[in-house]
């Protein structure tokens, strides 16, 4: 036990002595939360659009004005024919063109209907959808107020009353913070452990450790402990930021949250240990844990794209991504206030994945080097 505690102290010293790495390890998650928290939104802001107005009358002018004044759009200019649109789209100068038909006002007053065409650059389908929805809403608002002005009775009928449960304003920060916690923990824990163990191999210190009275699991635990502490501190700092700066709600129990976070950190650490048993040098270890894990963690965990939208096969694959389960747990605890009664399945799965990796690495951990 004495040798073990000595080893742990050595590991802590080695990491905490290196001020620069430490600064990076604590500072970067903070910067990331701040940067992404402020920058990544789902609302469109100042998208550049052009107008093709075949009519040029009172009504079209006031619609254009409302679109320009909405804050979501920036009127880049007017075009006079369809032929001018293509080059602008190709340059990427504009993302949408609003086309008014000829005699717009006359059609509207005489026949009661008029047509607007919204042409979008749909190379980005998501943006095209968003822009269309925004423009349609502005135009619909305009018609409603026009009809009210002229005191035309709106027909009664059914109206959907939508309530967004757990996240009423659909704030993206509320969704982003849990995701960011998952991604940061996954990568810090996995990357750092895998590198620090392979580093001993590469530098030749592993032999010294192996001939010492320390058992293999002592070595692993000693290597992993400092990062566990570090990750917990990171979780705490992200939570404080989320609360103080962004006002992200926290409905559930903090104790449950920290237990779950610990579990996930251990999952990530065990994955890191596993990678280090497969890789022989730092370069391989980090290519696996970075290039191999970054995109799958971001894409398959439901962090940005909903898992439910993916093809069946990918939904199956996403089951083996630990971050997916942790993300469900964190979102439920933070936004819904769910307790363990609702989350035991996800928790068990995470535990299962953890045990699997621990078992695998214990089996693969070589006591002898070639």
């Amino acid at each position, binding site marked *: 036990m004495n040798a073990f505690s000595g080893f742990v102290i050595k590991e802590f010293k080695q990491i905490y002595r290196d001020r*620069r790495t430490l600064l*990076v*390890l604590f500072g970067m998650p903070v910067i990331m939360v701040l940067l*992404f928290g402020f920058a*990544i*939104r789902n*609302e469109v*802001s100042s998208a550049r659009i052009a107008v093709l107005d075949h009519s040029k009358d009172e009504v079209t002018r006031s619609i254009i004005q409302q679109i320009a004044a909405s804050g979501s759009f920036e009127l880049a200019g007017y075009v006079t024919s369809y032929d001018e649109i293509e080059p602008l*789209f190709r340059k*990427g100068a504009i993302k949408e063109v609003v086309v008014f038909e000829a005699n717009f006002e006359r059609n509207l007053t005489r026949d*009661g209907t*008029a*047509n*607007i065409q919204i*042409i*979008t*650059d749909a190379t980005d*389908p*998501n*943006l095209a959808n*968003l822009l269309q929805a925004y*423009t349609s809403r502005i135009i619909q608002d305009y018609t409603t107020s*026009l009809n009210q002005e002229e005191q*035309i*009775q*709106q*027909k*009664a*009928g*059914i109206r*959907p009353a939508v309530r*967004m*449960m757990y*996240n009423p304003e*659909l*704030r*993206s920060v509320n*969704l982003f913070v849990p995701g960011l916690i998952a991604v940061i923990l996954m990568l810090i824990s996995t*990357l*750092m452990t895998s*590198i620090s163990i392979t*580093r001993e191999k590469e530098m030749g210190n592993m032999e010294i450790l192996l001939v010492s009275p320390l058992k293999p699991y002592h070595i692993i635990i000693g290597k992993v402990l400092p990062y566990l502490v570090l990750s917990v501190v990171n979780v705490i700092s992200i939570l404080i930021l989320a609360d103080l700066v962004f006002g992200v709600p926290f409905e559930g129990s903090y104790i449950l949250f920290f237990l779950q976070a610990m579990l996930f950190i251990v999952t990530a650490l065990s994955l890191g240990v596993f990678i280090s048993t497969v890789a022989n040098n730092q*370069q*391989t270890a980090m*290519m696996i844990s*970075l*290039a191999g894990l*970054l*995109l799958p963690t971001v*894409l398959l965990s439901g962090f940005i*794209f*909903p898992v*439910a*939208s*993916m*093809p069946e096969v*990918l939904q199956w694959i*996403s089951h083996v991504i630990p971050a997916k389960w942790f993300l469900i747990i964190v979102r439920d605890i933070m*936004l819904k206030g*769910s307790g363990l009664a609702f989350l035991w399945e996800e928790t068990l799965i995470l535990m299962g994945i953890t045990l699997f990796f621990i078992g695998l690495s214990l089996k693969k951990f070589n006591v002898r080097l070639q």
Partner: protein
Amino acid sequence: MRTIRFLLQKEFLQIFRNKAMLPILFVMPVVQLLVLSFAATYQLKEVDFALIDMDQSTYSRQLIAKFQASGYFIAGYETFSKEQALEELDKGNVKMVLHIPADLQRDMIAGRPAEVQLSIDAVDGSTAGLIQSYSTSIIRDFDREKSGELQWVSGSREAEQAKVINIIPVNWYNPDLDYITYMVPGILVVLVSMIGLFLSGMNIVREQEIGTIEQLNVTPIKKHQLIIGKLIPFWVIGMVDLVIGLALARYGFHIPFLGSLVTILIVAGIYLIVVQAIGLFISTVTHTQQQAMFIAWFIMVVFILMGGLFTPVESMPVWAQNLTAANPVAYFISIMRMVLLKGAGWPEIQTMVAVLTGMGIIFLIVSINRYSKTSA
């Protein structure tokens, strides 16, 4: 020249001798491109909802049938208790509760306003937005159908006087709003950049950590020769990956190649130099591979998330949109998409290419200067 050749030989040997690295460099990107491109979609698939039908009328049944027939919604749970329905939502068994009030049919026929309640699980915000827009459009359609029928019956002409502006959406370049076409070029860029940045970011610092940099320092190799010798192998690897990826995009995903392939390759060449120069720069300011990797990872995540790959640049606040001016990944992603999907040529992309070139030169000069042969 001879010196560089020997250096190159050494670097290539080192890379290809490491059998564990080869699959990581060439197989992993291809697999990720194949798999992950399908993951990046916002299309709504079948959603389970809990149904509270207090009306039990012809109309309410027609509305429910309309929901089910849309192919997007399945009534997975039926109840008359609001609490039970909300509990299902809490548990995550359903994503939405559809609550049809009693007297829906009577109110509609009498011309009174009626309200259908939708409670959507917004823990996953993007799905919630999709569910909202699909379900409200179903309800609106239903409303329009019914009010048409009712007017015809009652002969009322009131509603007809209301003015309507028809909105006709047209989607250019990608009429089916297909995500794959949009995502494949972007994901390919990220994969190639990761390999370029991580490999070059680790390289010099690795020699430093192991101590072999001293051996290189005492040789007559010049600074720029060393840097060139370090860069070319990774550049070649990056280009090979890119070409494999492009072939996959063309023949596997059937992405339209509207623009010129040569343009793409030239820009890719410049872009890879930029990425590697950034990597080299990281390598010269750090002391261990661990530090270098963490910084490289951080930069990569920022570049990816703010580069317009997954979320449009237009959906960020203006100050963040301005930051993309310094983001090489954003430039290359947008060039790839413009050239491949819209057929843009030199006139459209030349400013971006110029900026990329500028970035490459600056980072190269800075990192060559920072690397000093005499430092301990």
